[in-house]
């Protein structure tokens, strides 16, 4: 709390003066809050808007770039697979055109063709010739399929209608995934036959696995029913159905967003492979795809956060500095007004005192002369001169007149010194004058006053009125702090630096550290209930500075307070203006 109090700006610590003719010009706390808020709004709003805009644009740009790239990969893969299939269909078509039905039914010829196909294209498992009735009349390959009747199979009808047929991927006898390609050829006599081959899907898989897909990306084929045709890396096993909706037919490569069974967003790129039952599927996790965006996003948010922090700190520092300076200027204005009011009051009191003293001095002079005359008459008359009682009474009247005279002279002196002029001063005299004002109070409250004067102190030049006021304020405060029977000790000496040091020590109630830190603040008073204005020490501080001196204070709660004033032998040149 103590550190917080120390760094807290002055205007936040101030007690608002809401009454009296001298108010602060503004509510500085409110000005500070509004200045902070508006400046922050004006500076941060554009920053936040631009960053948000940039955030959105960058995110969209990165997202569309990724989608475009996936689309491009999809299109390329579609072309490669399509070319792979059409290449094999064309190879079969070439064979049926180049060879006669009879040649193809020659087992050696067929075996030689199969061998050529394997060496030229790869992936060919077997080769068979199926006659018009659907019976395999010739076969080259690892299985004993010669004479097998395919007439009741769906694909057999389809190839007769369409001219060629590409089957779904299936396991077959060897339990190895493969597909079948069949082409029909019509002989010159009008009858037709089918050349059929089984192809391993290994080549497909190689094409698909060669695709560069980041993260958990996957590329595979499905058939029109959504059954997986090639192995997948992260999806279900081959021949299982994909957990997504089968894409609608389109001649172009399409891309769409979906959610996987775990509820995570995925990007699905699909392409129908022409003249085949296959649909190419490229599946990517959106989060993986946007990973580069995440890094950019963290940088962007970090930049925004740092910028906002720096701007807010700068706004806080500048606003606090300027508002505090305004506040301090206003405080100085108020202080000056109060000082003027205080000076005016003192001047009024001075004028009043001078008037009263003058009015009293004349009748006092008459009393003095009349009593003096009585004494003279008695002195010069032998019968009365020996009357000690009468002489004592007259002396008493004259002594009282003398006392009154001293009081009126002091009042006149007080009034005169309000004007502020430099003169040669004896510190001992000033202390005596000040104590003279409080002599009666000290007697009534049984306060003992000890004055210890260093005889080597020379007379020095200063403003008598200001010095009187400084000492009067401090001694007054000391009297207020002391209980009945208190002790006041005044020490005046010449210090090593050739300056005059006056210390005033009381054994009064003392002050806490916190109170000690505020005593020179204007309007701070512990005597508000008994009429303290909180200006005495503040003005004292200003007056000591005017005289080119310093004021120090040491205090302990419950033990007492010591004020020390150090004054130069020559005041600064500005004093006494």
């Amino acid at each position, binding site marked *: 709390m103590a550190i917080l109090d120390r760094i807290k700006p002055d205007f936040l610590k101030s007690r608002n003066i809401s009454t009296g003719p001298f108010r602060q010009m503004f509510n500085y706390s409110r000005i500070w809050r509004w200045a902070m808020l508006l400046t922050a709004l004006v500076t941060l709003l554009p920053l936040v808007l631009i960053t948000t805009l940039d955030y959105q644009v960058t995110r969209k740009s990165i997202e569309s770039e990724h989608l475009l790239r996936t689309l491009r990969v999809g299109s390329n893969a579609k072309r490669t697979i399509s070319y792979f299939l059409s290449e094999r269909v064309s190879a079969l078509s070439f064979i049926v055109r180049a060879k006669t039905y009879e040649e193809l039914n020659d087992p050696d010829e067929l075996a030689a063709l199969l061998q050529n196909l394997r060496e030229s294209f790869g992936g060919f498992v077997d080769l068979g010739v199926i006659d018009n009735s659907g019976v395999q009349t010739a076969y080259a390959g690892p299985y004993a399929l010669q004479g097998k009747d395919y007439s009741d199979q769906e694909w057999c009808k389809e190839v007769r209608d369409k001219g060629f047929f590409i089957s779904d991927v299936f396991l077959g006898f060897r339990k190895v995934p493969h597909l079948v390609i069949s082409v029909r050829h019509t002989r010159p006599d009008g009858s037709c036959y089918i050349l059929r081959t089984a192809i391993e899907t290994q080549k497909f898989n190689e094409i698909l696995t060669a695709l560069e897909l980041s993260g958990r990306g996957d590329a595979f084929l499905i058939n029109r029913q959504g059954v997986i045709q090639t192995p997948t890396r992260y999806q279900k096993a081959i021949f299982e159905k994909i957990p997504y909706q089968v894409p609608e037919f389109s001649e172009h490569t399409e891309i769409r967003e979906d959610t996987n069974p775990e509820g995570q967003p995925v990007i699905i790129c699909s392409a129908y492979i022409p003249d085949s039952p296959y649909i190419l599927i490229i599946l990517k996790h959106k989060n993986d795809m946007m990973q580069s965006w995440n890094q950019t996003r963290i940088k962007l948010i970090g930049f925004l956060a740092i910028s906002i922090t720096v701007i807010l700190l700068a706004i806080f520092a500048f606003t606090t500095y300027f508002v505090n300076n305004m506040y301090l200027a206003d405080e100085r204005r108020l202080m000056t007004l109060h000082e003027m009011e205080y000076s005016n009051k003192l001047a009024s009191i001075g004028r009043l005192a001078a008037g009263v003293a003058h*009015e009293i*001095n*004349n009748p*006092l002079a008459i009393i003095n*002369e009349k009593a003096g005359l009585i004494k*003279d*008459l008695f002195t*010069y008359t032998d019968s009365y001169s020996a009357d000690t009682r009468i002489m004592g009474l007259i002396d008493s009247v*004259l002594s009282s007149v003398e006392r009154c005279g001293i009081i009126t002279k002091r009042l*006149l002196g007080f009034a005169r010194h309000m004007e502020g002029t430099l003169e040669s001063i004896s510190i001992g005299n000033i202390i005596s004058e000040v104590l003279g004002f409080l002599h009666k109070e000290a007697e009534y409250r049984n306060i003992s006053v000890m004055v210890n004067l260093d005889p080597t102190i020379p007379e020095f030049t200063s403003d008598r009125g200001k010095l009187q006021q400084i000492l009067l304020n401090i001694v007054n405060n000391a009297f207020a702090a002391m209980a009945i029977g208190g002790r006041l000790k005044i020490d005046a000496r010449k210090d090593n630096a050739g300056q005059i040091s006056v210390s005033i020590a009381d054994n009064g109630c003392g002050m806490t550290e916190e109170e000690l830190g505020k005593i020179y603040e204007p309007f701070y008073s512990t005597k508000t209930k008994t009429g303290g204005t909180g200006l005495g020490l503040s003005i004292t501080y200003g007056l000591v500075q005017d005289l080119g001196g310093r004021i120090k204070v040491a205090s302990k709660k419950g033990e007492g307070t010591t004020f020390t004033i150090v004054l130069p032998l020559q005041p600064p040149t500005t004093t006494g203006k």
Partner: protein
Amino acid sequence: MRILLVDDETEFVATLAERLSLRSMAVDYATTAQEALALIEEHAYDLAVLDMKMPGTSGLELQSTLKERCPAMKFIFLTGHGSETDYITGSSEASSYLVKPVAIDILIAKIKEALGKW
């Protein structure tokens, strides 16, 4: 040795005159400037004790007039207005400035000092 007292407070000036007379001094008193000027026509005074403020005139003005008539005359000022140094206005003619009420012994000492004898 003749002394002139001028003060508008009759009670004061009359009593002071009587007290100085009792001390074997030749003393006259006036309560106005006119009376003072009239008295100066009749007697030669060595010293005048003047009040600083009187109705219609000031002690300093009266001092100038008296000085014209009697250049050798010495002056002591009395005032109810301030301390001894209040009225040092450059007039070197005044020997002393005393604030009322003043003890008779001090006044006599000042008179002696001004006249440089007794």
